[in-house]
């Protein structure tokens, strides 16, 4: 095929619906907007797109907008594996993918998904990596060097080869998935949100692996990495690793081009419900020339220097940009020397080790730290899910264990990371009423609470809907409504933003912020997302090895590069830029604050473009 030399994947007029035997609309009917929460209609609505050969292409768009669905046509999962309704042409590496089986596509196309647990099949590290090559009938003597090369590539070469995958950390598991896929020596690598379930350290390790693969640096033999990579991600920092970008909107490509072109096109990004990179947002607001907006902190710093702009304090030091946690009131929680250990067959393993902490009414506190640092275990002490082995936890001056689970549960709500771990009812209303009913509410009071909770999360009118048919963002809101209906004083969130796209994250957290500002709900959130911490939590507690390593105003934390490095935390881009130019002034936590800090004079609005010479990481296109 003549195309296959410069194009790795080409789709023509692809329409796909997850509904079986559906009558697919004609092309002319597929204009207009698609509702991202609508599950019935076609997800891909007339897709024409090509992925350049030898490129690293990132696909972005709103949740439910068809990104993952699009990638699944690249290795024939659609239409071969998923039984929906399909129309169109898909050409992958010169093969007609609509007529090829997934297991055959696997010879040339490797795929890594977000959920590493579902992708590990081997009973040992070695067996896991050998699995793909075995399936493809690679001779046994060739598999051994592939195992070595792949484990080396992902930095797991020091693992005992017979170790069971179940004992590895999340980051290690995902790296093992990459190793297993790399061992099949794919020409095209398809990545579907590979870091969404990982902590910052795990994310950084995966980013390193992706960089090595995209640079073709996988040392060894006749394969040094895939020629082409296609990736879906919600994280803008990761998108900037790529060289090409495609934005999806309403089930169709909406804008494509180089990463620089696409991610500085603020109108297109906003229309596609993709987060505008914060530095682009700040500099756009400051009037910097549109074709020269900075993507990375170093680029922004160069532009500030070139324009000779001045930096002024963007806000009061103790105030969060989200206006949350402004006036702490009475003492709510007092934790003193809390220690907790899990029983394992190798004896007790200490997860929380001598924590002293207080939380006041109306505060918004972020608990950060790597997986295994004990933050979720600690959070579970707030509502009595865990009881301290040593030390004490008291709520309003009374030890938490003295409250019954029913009593403390009314006061302190806990929103788990994955809404699917709690949704069970047939209707939204029943689901939301479950908690308050358990706490003894009945009749009108119950109905009133449920109504209000549904209204707050903007699901009113959907009382009789089936929560299992909802999108992830909606399910997250059902779970929150279930807690709100119990009218708690405190809400503890475990990773509230995982699995949500930029718009949903913002909506969800704005909702939480509103609860805090208007109703004084105290918020404790365990999170890996530094952007969320920066915007909403004026105070951050850093956990390390089960202990509180630091407890300080968030603005101070993100303003101190040395401390951040010590805790292995990466500041949001606006803070990173501000830190390079701010002198003694407090740092800026968001794009808006950065714009305020640099906008005192019009220096930036009148400046000359710096040009792409100043840019760095995004110039990988011509590798």
């Amino acid at each position, binding site marked *: 095929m003549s195309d296959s030399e410069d194009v790795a994947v080409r789709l023509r007029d692809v329409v796909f619906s997850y509904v079986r035997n559906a009558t697919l609309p004609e092309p002319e009917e597929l204009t207009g907007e698609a509702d991202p929460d609508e599950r019935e209609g076609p997800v891909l609505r007339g897709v024409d797109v090509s992925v350049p050969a030898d490129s690293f292409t990132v696909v972005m768009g709103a949740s439910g907008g068809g990104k993952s669905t699009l990638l699944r046509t690249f290795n024939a*999962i659609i239409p071969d*594996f998923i039984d929906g309704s399909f129309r169109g042409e898909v050409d992958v590496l010169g093969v007609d993918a609509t007529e090829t*089986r*997934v*297991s055959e*596509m*696997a*010879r040339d*196309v490797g*795929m890594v*998904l977000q*959920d590493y*647990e*579902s*992708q*590990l*099949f*081997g*009973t*040992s590290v*070695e*067996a896991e990596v*050998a*699995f*793909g090559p*075995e*399936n*493809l*009938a690679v001779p*046994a003597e060739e598999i051994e060097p592939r*195992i070595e090369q792949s484990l080396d590539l992902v930095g797991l070469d020091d693992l005992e080869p*017979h170790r*069971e*995958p*179940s004992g590895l950390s999340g980051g290690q598991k995902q790296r093992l998935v990459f190793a297993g*896929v790399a061992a099949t020596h794919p020409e095209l690598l398809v990545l579907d949100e590979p870091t969404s379930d990982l902590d910052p350290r795990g994310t950084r390790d995966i980013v390193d692996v992706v960089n090595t693969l995209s640079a073709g640096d996988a040392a060894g033999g006749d394969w040094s990495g895939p020629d082409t990579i296609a990736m879906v991600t919600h994280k803008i920092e990761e998108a900037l690793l790529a060289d090409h970008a495609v934005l999806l909107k309403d089930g169709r490509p909406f804008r494509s081009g180089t990463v620089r072109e696409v991610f500085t096109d603020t109108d297109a990004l906003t229309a596609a419900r993709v987060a505008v990179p914060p530095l682009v947002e700040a500099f756009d607001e400051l009037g910097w020339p549109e074709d020269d907006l900075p993507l990375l902190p170093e680029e922004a710093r160069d532009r500030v220097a070139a324009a000779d702009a001045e930096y002024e304090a963007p806000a009061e030091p103790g105030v969060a940009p989200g206006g949350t946690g402004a006036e702490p009131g009475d003492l709510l929680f007092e934790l003193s020397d809390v220690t907790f250990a899990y*029983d*394992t*067959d*190798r004896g007790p393993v200490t*997860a929380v080790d001598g924590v002293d902490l207080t939380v006041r009414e109306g505060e918004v506190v972020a608990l950060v730290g790597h997986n295994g640092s004990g933050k979720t275990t600690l959070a*579970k002490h707030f*509502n009595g*899910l865990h009881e301290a082995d040593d030390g004490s936890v008291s709520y309003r001056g009374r030890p938490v264990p003295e409250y019954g*689970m*029913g009593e403390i*549960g*009314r006061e302190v709500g*806990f929103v*788990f990371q994955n809404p*699917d*771990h*709690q*949704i*069970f009812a047939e209707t939204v209303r029943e689901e939301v009423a*479950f*908690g308050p009913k*358990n706490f003894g509410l009945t009749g009108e009071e119950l109905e009133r609470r449920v109504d209000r909770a549904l209204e707050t999360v903007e699901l009113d009118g959907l009382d009789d809907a089936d929560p299992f048919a909802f999108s992830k963002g909606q399910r997250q809101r059902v779970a929150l409504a*279930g807690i709100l209906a*119990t009218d708690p004083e405190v809400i503890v969130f475990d990773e509230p933003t995982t699995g949500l796209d930029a718009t949903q994250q913002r909506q969800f957290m704005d909702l939480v912020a509103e609860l805090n500002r208007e109703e004084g709900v105290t918020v404790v959130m365990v999170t890996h997302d530094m952007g969320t911490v920066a915007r909403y939590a004026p105070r951050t507690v850093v956990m390390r090895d089960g202990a509180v390593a630091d407890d300080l105003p968030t603005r101070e934390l993100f303003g101190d590069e040395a401390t951040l490095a010590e805790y292995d935390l990466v500041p949001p881009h606006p803070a990173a830029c501000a830190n390079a130019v701010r002198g003694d002034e407090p740092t800026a936590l968001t794009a808006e604050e950065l714009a305020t800090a640099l906008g005192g004079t019009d220096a930036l609005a009148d400046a000359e473009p710096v040009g792409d010479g100043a840019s760095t990481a995004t110039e990988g296109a011509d590798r």
Partner: protein
Amino acid sequence: MSSTSLYVDADSFLHRLDPRAKLALLVAMAVPAYTFGRPAFIAIPFVAALVGLWIGQGLRNLRRVWFIIVALFVVGLVVWPGFVERGGPVVVDVGPLYLTERQTLFALGRSLRITSFILGGLVYVSTTSNEEIVRGMRGLGLPYAFCFAVGTALRLFPTFLDAAGTVRQAQEARGLEISSRNPIERARSFIPLLIPVFMTAFRNIETQSMALEARGFDTRSERTFYRDSDFAFRDWLAVGFTVAVSVASIALSTMGVGTF
């Protein structure tokens, strides 16, 4: 967080044996335990299983299953006397409790037999990783698809338990209590636990089968095997030992040695 696997990661003689040879040794223990009836004879495989557990460093697993072992032992002691003819001298005669020597020895033998089986199984799982269990099954000639299914189940069991634990906590935090005396109420209160656990499992299964095919898995096409077990000399020794012990046990017991 607590580990659900009974496998002990160590490097003992038993760990090094081929999984099939270990199955053979299990037979070498089970045959005498089954053919003989007298406790003095069954005590030999019973002790052998305990020694195996000691060699395989699996004694600590006893902590996790001792309750089952003791319970089975005691239940056997209580139940079996009722199923056997009285005979021999009287051992106990207190009120309604009347036991002869024959009854007591018979019951003791049966209790030793059942607990030997459990201890033997415990030796096997303590010294054989999931990987080896599956490889052993394949070595015995079982179809690959079946072995793979067993391996996946073993792999996913801890993940499943983790999810179940999280669901329980999530519902407890919403005030779910499972302590009602009324059995119907009690059963109903399990619904908020079971549905999320199974829905999550189903969602995972879909992703898993997708990921599986994407890795080229296809039961219909040809495949290679990276590491096949090699049956070493010591493995053959174990098989020889098993044959000898089994033949001897069967011969002796048919001659009436060690039986009632």
